[in-house]
């Protein structure tokens, strides 16, 4: 269970990104966050892996209060959260394989097990056979799929995605949405911030709309 309680996030300079948001997300839910630019979607997602800290209020994952998590504990929290950002953030000097392998190395997986997991992740996102290529040789959609494989290879219990289809053609975007649905089908809690809610309409996800840092509708 992810619990946001009376969350306020103000940035230096006084800009209020979130203004008293309270919300609960059950394990295994597929949640689509919508809203215009500056509505607070990205900030809300960034609070989950402690990329941002709330000005007031709390964020809890299970029994753990993320808003008061010591800095040294943050890496271990993030290992259980897959992240897909608007830009793929792949490392362009490493092969697709090495990019997907990175979270497993960080997590200390034995090489044999890591290789099996990377293979499975490549199959899942349809990049099998492309693992030796470098990200520059992939299309935008393929890069995003590689980023999704990297986010999922650790088999996290939570997957967050911030505008994962923003720069993609509709066909590619639909494929990506399909991937998120399949992860959710495997029991992963998925939170996607997107402008394009229609991509997920077939699966009747829980829809949360934000405007000016406030929860508008569920």
């Amino acid at each position, binding site marked *: 269970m992810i619990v946001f309680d009376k969350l306020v996030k103000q940035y230096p300079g006084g800009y209020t990104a979130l203004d008293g948001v309270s919300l609960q997300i059950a394990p295994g839910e597929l949640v689509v966050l919508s809203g215009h630019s500056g509505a607070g979607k990205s900030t809300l997602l960034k609070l989950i892996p402690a*990329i941002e800290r709330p000005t007031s209020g709390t964020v809890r994952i299970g029994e753990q209060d993320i808003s008061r998590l010591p800095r040294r504990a943050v*890496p271990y929290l993030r*290992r259980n959260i897959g992240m897909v950002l608007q830009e793929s*953030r792949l*490392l362009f000097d490493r092969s697709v394989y090495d990019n997907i392998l990175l979270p497993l190395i960080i997590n200390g997986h*034995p090489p044999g097990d890591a290789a099996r997991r990377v293979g499975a992740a490549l199959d899942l996102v349809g990049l099998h056979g492309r693992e030796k290529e470098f990200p520059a040789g992939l299309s935008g959609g393929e890069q995003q799929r590689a980023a999704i494989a*990297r986010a999922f290879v*650790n088999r996290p219990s939570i997957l967050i995605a911030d505008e994962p289809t923003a720069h993609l053609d509709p066909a590619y975007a639909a494929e990506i949405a399909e991937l998120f649905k399949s992860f959710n089908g495997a029991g992963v809690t998925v939170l996607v911030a997107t402008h394009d809610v229609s991509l997920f309409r077939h699966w009747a996800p829980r829809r949360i709309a934000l405007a000016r840092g406030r929860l508008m509708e569920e």
Partner: protein
Amino acid sequence: MRNWLYLHSRAFVQALKRLGGQPFGTLLSALVMGVALALPAGGYILLDNIAVLARGVSGTPEISLFLDGKADSARAEAIESRLRAEPDLASFRFVPRDEALKQLESSGLGDVLGGITVNPLPDAFVVTLRGDDPELFETLSARIRGWPGVAHVQLDSAWVKRLSALVGLGRTVVLVLAVLLGLTLVIVTFNTIRLQILTQKNEIEVSRLLGATDRFIRRPFYWFGGLQGVFGGLVALGAVWIGMDVLAEPVAKVAETYGAAVALGGPGWLESLVTVAFAIALGWLGAAISVRRHLAET
């Protein structure tokens, strides 16, 4: 433990790749480190050679007693019996003036003495001492100097002592030089790692998002600094070997004119290991300071 070794081996390979990815920069850094380390390392080895030479040349410490021209055989016998009574002497021998002249002629200075009809050399005693306490030399020399019939007392090891003092001074200079240049190398590595951190900024950010600890992120940079130290240390050793090789012949020629045979030796295994270990420690230290300082900014 196995995982720890695996992570270190990966960090090591990553650091090697980063160094290999910029061969010119790596070469320049190794040269800077190597040349800077070669100065104190070479100085130390050279001083070590000089110290060995001084020990070899000085051999057993001796004092030469030159009798005045008026001293007859009775005076010489009196001095001999006084020497016999000295407890600190190991041995002594009388060198008559004629024998001294013969020795001088046989040393190749016969031409110089060619025009001299009267032997100008005095009778002498050459005294060998027990032990090598410098204070004992001085006390004994001062005492002998006051004996009747003794014109001059020469402490044969005086120049060796001066040389030893100079070698000691040289060692201090080398130590100061090593500290200063070591500091410079830490700064060089600090700056190289700073640039590396800037270059790898994206990778660091992504790794953090994926749950990398600071220790995980620092590891390749430590190896990078250490490997730079290895290359720098090896360049330093190479430079010292080349330097000794170049100096060997001129030094041997100079030594030959003093009747000594000198063969300059390069750094031994221990000196080589210490040089490389010192370079690694400097590289690692520079990396550690830089990483701590700059990772917080990324």
